[in-house]
Structure formats: C-alpha cells, structure tokens
C-alpha cells in the first residue's frame, strides 16, 4: 500500500508539476485583477516547444547541449528521492538528503556551464548570481534537515518525515516551525521566485535563472521548463512535509493531504509573489543568511 502511494506520488509529480506553475500564475493574475492565462498554459508551451527545431549559437559546444539533458535527468532522480508529507519516497535510504542536495547541485552546475558556454555577458551574470545564492542555500537546507534528524533520530528523508509528528506536536513544533520558515526561503530562492528573482522578466539585469537559459530554445527549453517545474515540486513536497502536521496512517489519505498541501504551497507562493517586491540583489544574500540562521535556531531547539 505504501509503495503504491509512493509510485502514485511520482506519477502525479511527473504529470502535475507544470500545473503548479499554472496555479501560481493564476493566483498572481487574480491578485492583479486579470483573468490570467489558462491553468494548463505550461503544458501547451511544452507541447509546442517539443515540436520545434533548434537554433544553436556558433559559440556553443556540447556543454550547451548537455546542460538541459543533465538538468532534467538530475531532477528526475531528485523526484524519486523526495517524500510527499507522510508518503515515503520511491527510493528511501539513510543519507538520501545528501544525494538530493548534490543532484540538484549537479543540475545547477551544468546549467551554469551551459550559460557560460554562450559567451554572453548577460548569461554570465545570471550564472554568477546563481552560484552565489545557492552556496548559501545549501548549508541552510542541510542544517535544517539536520535539525529534523536530531528530533526524530532518523537520517533518511522518508524516515524523518514519517516520524516527525508521530509523538505529538508539542515536542517538535518549535523546530518544525523554524525549519519550515527556513525551507520556505530556500524554496523561493532555489526556484527563482519573487522576492529573489522574477520569473516573468527575461531581460532585466536583476534576472538570475531565466537569463541563464536565454539562448536555449525548442526541445532544450522544454526540458528546462519541465525540469524547473519538477524542481519546484521537489521543494514544495519538502516544505509540505514539515509545515503540514497531519498523519493519517492511511497512505492514500496521506497522499491526498500531501497533494493538497503542495497546491496550497503553490497558492502561497502566488500570494507572496503578488504582495512582495523583488529584493535588491544585495539583500538576497542577507535573506539567505537569515534562512541559515533560522535553520541554526531549529538545530539549537532540537538539541535541547
């Protein structure tokens, strides 16, 4: 039963993650008083992109073409490692969080190299910022998980999430709150959302992720956008597991709660994007330092 839930989770993640982007955009549109694009817009985009040819810059080499392939492969491995709320991951083992973090690191590494391969100053700039911000996000993520692993005595993600709220809320609530806050900041930063980055504007100098993939088109761009949606799913699932203190012990019900949680998180992201302005770039590292400090507080509370 549990393994069935895990499989369903992966299938749903693969099929529904583009919808997540649709939900965010719809919430933003509602806030702005627009009708907004269709919920399924990203599916249409992907379909169209998959049927296009390609234009490659004469400057680029195989690195540019490998970037999207490695990105989507890495995020597929990641999605099989992430539990959704109480539903364990498809592949769960001690230390899977390390693999998860590093697989996403590989994705970033290749995306950055692909950006540098174009020789464009814009993409170089985006690449420089991407590596700068992620170097702060990574310790925060691992510290946060470390805090959870202190409170649960387990060090596989599925084990941690499975037993996090098993002994009642009181014992872990402070830790969980702090980790959730830290994870939310990491989620926004890693997925290039406002207030760190604006996914809508392609050409402004404040861009990070979108500017890195400026030169990709066609099938490659489809891979990149799909991978970005899946990455968002990975982080939403991680966040839901800490922020949603529900455990039903019926895998399919837990799965339903988890799914609902992911889409609620998407709506929350939409609200955040509608109500906040993008931070000045100099402020972004400070925000990430805050997320690391929050994770540290979680650790101190968990160590108590």
């Amino acid at each position, binding site marked *: 039963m549990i393994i069935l839930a895990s499989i369903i989770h992966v299938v749903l993640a693969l099929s529904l993650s583009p919808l997540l982007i649709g939900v965010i955009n719809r919430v933003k549109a509602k806030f702005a008083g627009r009708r907004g694009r269709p919920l399924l817009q990203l599916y249409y985009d992907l379909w169209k992109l998959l049927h296009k040819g390609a234009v490659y810059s004469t400057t680029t080499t195989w690195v540019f073409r490998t970037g999207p392939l490695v990105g989507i492969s890495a995020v597929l491995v990641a999605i099989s490692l992430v539990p959704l709320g109480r539903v364990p991951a498809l592949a769960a083992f001690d230390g899977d969080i390390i693999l998860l973090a590093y697989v996403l690191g590989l994705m970033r590494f290749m995306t950055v190299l692909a950006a540098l391969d174009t020789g464009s100053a814009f993409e170089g700039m985006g690449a420089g910022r991407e590596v700068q911000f992620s170097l702060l996000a990574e310790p925060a993520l691992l510290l946060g998980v470390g805090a959870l692993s202190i409170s649960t005595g387990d060090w596989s993600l599925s084990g941690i999430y499975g037993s996090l709220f098993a002994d009642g*809320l*009181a014992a872990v*609530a*402070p830790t969980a*709150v*702090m980790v959730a806050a830290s994870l939310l900041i990491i989620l926004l930063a890693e997925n290039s959302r406002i207030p760190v980055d604006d996914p809508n504007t392609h050409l402004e100098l404040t861009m990070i992720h979108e500017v890195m993939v400026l030169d990709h088109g066609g099938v490659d761009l489809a891979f990149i956008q799909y991978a970005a949606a899946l990455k968002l799913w990975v982080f939403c699932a991680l966040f839901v597991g800490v922020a949603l203190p529900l455990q039903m012990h019926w895998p399919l019900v837990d799965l339903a709660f988890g799914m609902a949680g992911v889409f609620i998180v998407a709506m929350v992201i939409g609200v955040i994007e509608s109500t906040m302005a993008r931070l000045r770039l100099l402020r972004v*590292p*400070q925000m990430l*330092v*805050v997320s*690391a*400090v929050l994770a*540290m*507080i979680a650790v*101190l*509370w968990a*160590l*108590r």
Partner: protein
Amino acid sequence: MSILTDLLMMLLVLTNLRMLASSRVAVCIQNVAIQAVVLGAITFSLSAHAAIAAGVIVVAISTVAVKGLVLPWLLRRAMKGAGIGREIEPFVGYASSVLIGAVLLGLCFVIARPLRDTSHAGASMLIPVAMFTILTGLFIIISRRKALTQVLGYLTMENGVCVFGVSLAVEEPLLVEMGILLDVLVGVFVMGIVIHQINREFDHIDTDRLSVLKD
C-alpha cells in the same frame, strides 16, 4: 514546558536577530515593544502551571504597559525630534551583525548547558535566551553610532535581564522588577531629553563624534 513558552522564546530570539539586521530605527523601536509584549506573555505562560499569583499579573501587565507602550512612544518622539530615520553607517554591517548574532546564540547555548537543571522547572531555554538577549543589547550598544540606537540596545539588554529574572523565580522579583522598571523609565526620559539637547546643540547624535569632548 508548554509549547507556548517554547514558541515565545523563539519569537524573542527572532526579535533579537531582527534588531541586529534592521537599519531602521523605527523597526528597532517596534522590536523593543514586541519584546516587552513577548516578555509579559512568557511570564504568564510560565506561571500557568501554578496558581496565578496576583503579583505576577501586576508585573506582567506593568511590563507590557511601560516597555511596550510608554517607552516606544517616548522613543518615537525622540526619533522624530532628532529627525533620524535610520542608522546610516554602523561600525559592524548588518549581515555581519546577524552572523555574529548567530555565533553568540550558539555560544549562549553552549555556556548555558551546565546551568540547565538549576533553572525554573522545564524552562531550559530561558537562560540561553536571556543571555542572548543581553548580549544582543550589548552588541548593539557597541556596534552602532547613534545615541538613540544605543538606548534601544540598552532596553534590549534590560529585557534580557527580565527574562533572567523570570527564569530564576516567577513570583519573587515583584519588587525588584518594579524598581528596575521605574529606573528604566526615568533613564529613557533623561536620555530622550539629552538626545534632544545634543541634537539641538550639535545637529547630530553620533556618539563617536562626542569623543572630541574628552578633555
């Protein structure tokens, strides 16, 4: 310890970090006010185990009233009077301040480890959090230029002392607490006037530039 106290402690830590991170004086004043309210709530939540003594309620309410309402009002007036919106050039930058704060926090927990058992029943976080609040206040006094921000640092420190008092015994320090409260109130009054005067005299309230008066 109840989950409520735990979360309140966490809130106190977060307000301290916000204090270190923010450049706006208004935010810092608001912070000190929030800390006072949190402090009152902590006093309540700790005494919720036992029968609530009348003294506790008095202390809690007067803490909230004086430090949460009167003092912020006074300080805001001083701020407007001196015409300063933000601390421009602190000796230590804001990101570094937060990092130093994090290190201090860790340090407090390490120092407080042996003291845990002696504190109030179950409230193992009180001592480290109190120490951290005091150190934050000290750090603000050391690292900022404006006299007003330094007053805020002093108030933060005082809040930390209050948490210490709470952690040692809930009921006892009624008298002491009231005394301190009065001192602080008078102190801030005086400082408000002094700041106002300094500002009128010198057109700024940068304390490091007062060092020319040393002779």
